[in-house]
């Protein structure tokens, strides 16, 4: 049974959750269905290795199943949509509701602030899981289109992207309650995510950035060729630890925050 605030948040976000999942599922199906037309176009493979390709998250040979999915879904579009969802929610659910004036009604329920925040984070996780499940199901449907990829890797990457989305969403929540402003929170969350993306994608071609890749959560979810080697225990550990740190920061900030 879902906690009350989680249930309310999912109800308030029902349309956008369905919208994100449906849109991303449709996109994924198109990418998957196009694979047979491109898989023998080996000239595409020469794209990878360039800085421009790296900027778009393209790393391996594009015509291999893993490279095709990485270059079209996992390396760019899927994390982008995931982050739109979690960062958007992270900014709206505390700072946004406080600006709207609805947060006070929730805060005067007989619940500790920590519980309120954890329940909201739970709602964020469920929204992210719905999106990830939609993508994963569509990617696995690719087996019908000669796109063979290990289910373990597909599920692993989806879970890693959910975790990365939550990390940035929680950072945004913390920034939101710390500053009390939705716009500022969005800026901080999106800015950190963009920096993280650039760091990971450019690290493969620009040597002086290379050591910095460890600071990027993208590196720990999709940037280290997880599509072929699988998501490692170390990857999961980093993503989970980052989430716990962000969650703790958000709880501390929320407990201190003055609300309207």
């Amino acid at each position, binding site marked *: 049974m879902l906690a009350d605030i989680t249930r*309310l948040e999912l*109800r*308030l976000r029902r349309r956008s959750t369905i919208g994100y999942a449906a849109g991303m599922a449709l996109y994924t199906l198109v990418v998957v269905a196009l694979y047979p037309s491109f898989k023998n176009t080996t000239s595409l493979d020469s794209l990878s290795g360039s800085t421009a390709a790296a900027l778009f998250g393209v790393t391996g040979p594009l015509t291999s199943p893993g490279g095709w999915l990485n270059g079209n879904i996992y390396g760019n579009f899927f994390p982008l949509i995931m982050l739109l969802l979690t960062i958007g929610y992270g900014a709206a659910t505390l700072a946004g509701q406080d600006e709207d004036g609805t947060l*006070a*009604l929730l805060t*005067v329920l007989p*619940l500790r602030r920590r519980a309120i925040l954890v329940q909201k984070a739970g709602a964020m996780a469920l929204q992210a899981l719905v999106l990830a499940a939609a993508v994963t199901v569509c990617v696995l449907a690719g087996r019908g289109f000669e796109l063979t990829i290990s289910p373990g890797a597909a599920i692993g990457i989806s879970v890693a992207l959910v975790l990365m989305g939550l990390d940035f969403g929680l950072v945004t929540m913390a920034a939101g309650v710390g500053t009390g402003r939705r716009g500022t929170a969005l800026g901080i969350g999106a800015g950190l995510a963009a920096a993280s993306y650039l760091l990971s994608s450019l690290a493969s071609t620009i040597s002086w950035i290379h050591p910095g890749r460890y600071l990027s959560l993208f590196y720990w979810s999709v940037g280290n060729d997880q599509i072929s080697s699988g998501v490692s225990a170390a990857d999961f550990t980093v993503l989970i630890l980052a989430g716990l740190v962000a969650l703790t920061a958000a709880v501390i900030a929320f407990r*201190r925050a003055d*609300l309207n």
Partner: protein
Amino acid sequence: MTSAIETFGLTKRYGTTTAVADLSLRVEPGEVFGFLGPNGAGKSTTIRMLLALQRPTRGRARLLGFDAAADSAEVHRRTGYLPGDLELFPRLTGSQHIAWFARARGGVDASLVEQLIERFQVVADRPVRELSKGNRQKIGLVLAFMHRPELLVLDEPTSGLDPLMQHEFENALREVASQGRTVFLSSHELDEVQRIANRIGIIKQGRLVAEDTVDGLRRAAPQKMEVRFRRPVDPATLSTVTGVTVTGSDGPRMTLEVTGEIAPALRVIASHDPVDLLSRPANLDELFLSFYRESPDSEVSHAG
């Protein structure tokens, strides 16, 4: 007996602005306490500190015997709150709000909810964004009353309500008080508070400037007099008398406000050959307005 509300030197500063300064008050169970003050006086900030929405810069508050900050969940369980600028979730209907909050509070008496919906004539089946301010306010009242709280904290509860609904609301408050439950309500309208409150606190620029029963305040309120003399009288002859303020003077006519005993004023008036004297009973409005007027800020705004 445990007080319903006790505050000790409650203070809130935002940067260099002091919103509430050293506020100490006590409200006993079964009382209806009216918290009066002009807009921006610090009423809502005080209420937010009582409900732990904001942390005091200094001082503390106890509600129903619990520390407002440390035991906030317990305080919230026993308290009903109506925010000053009530905002609900625009896409949800009144029924959806009521059902969700009832469940989040661990269930409430369904028959009481129905009674409240009927009493406040709540439009329950339309999304809140389609409702007028008054109709949204009524949903807020149901949310505040429905778990039969021991303490009701209501920030400007009647804003947007029509007179009929205000009347119904006042009846509901009287019932609450008669059951030994406590009401703390803020308002900037004296009339409303005068009708329902046992005791009144007046806050101005963050400070509690008066706290008394309605009768007590009335006794202290200035009495207005209009005097017509046979010939012009220098206002200074009266303005030097204790408790007398000359509010207007036009040749032989003079208007005065007298606080406390009227005998000294009458003696001076009698010695100047009065033709006519009209005295209006002590009016709480005058007292209340005098608190408003004394603010330098409001004088500036009146001058414009």
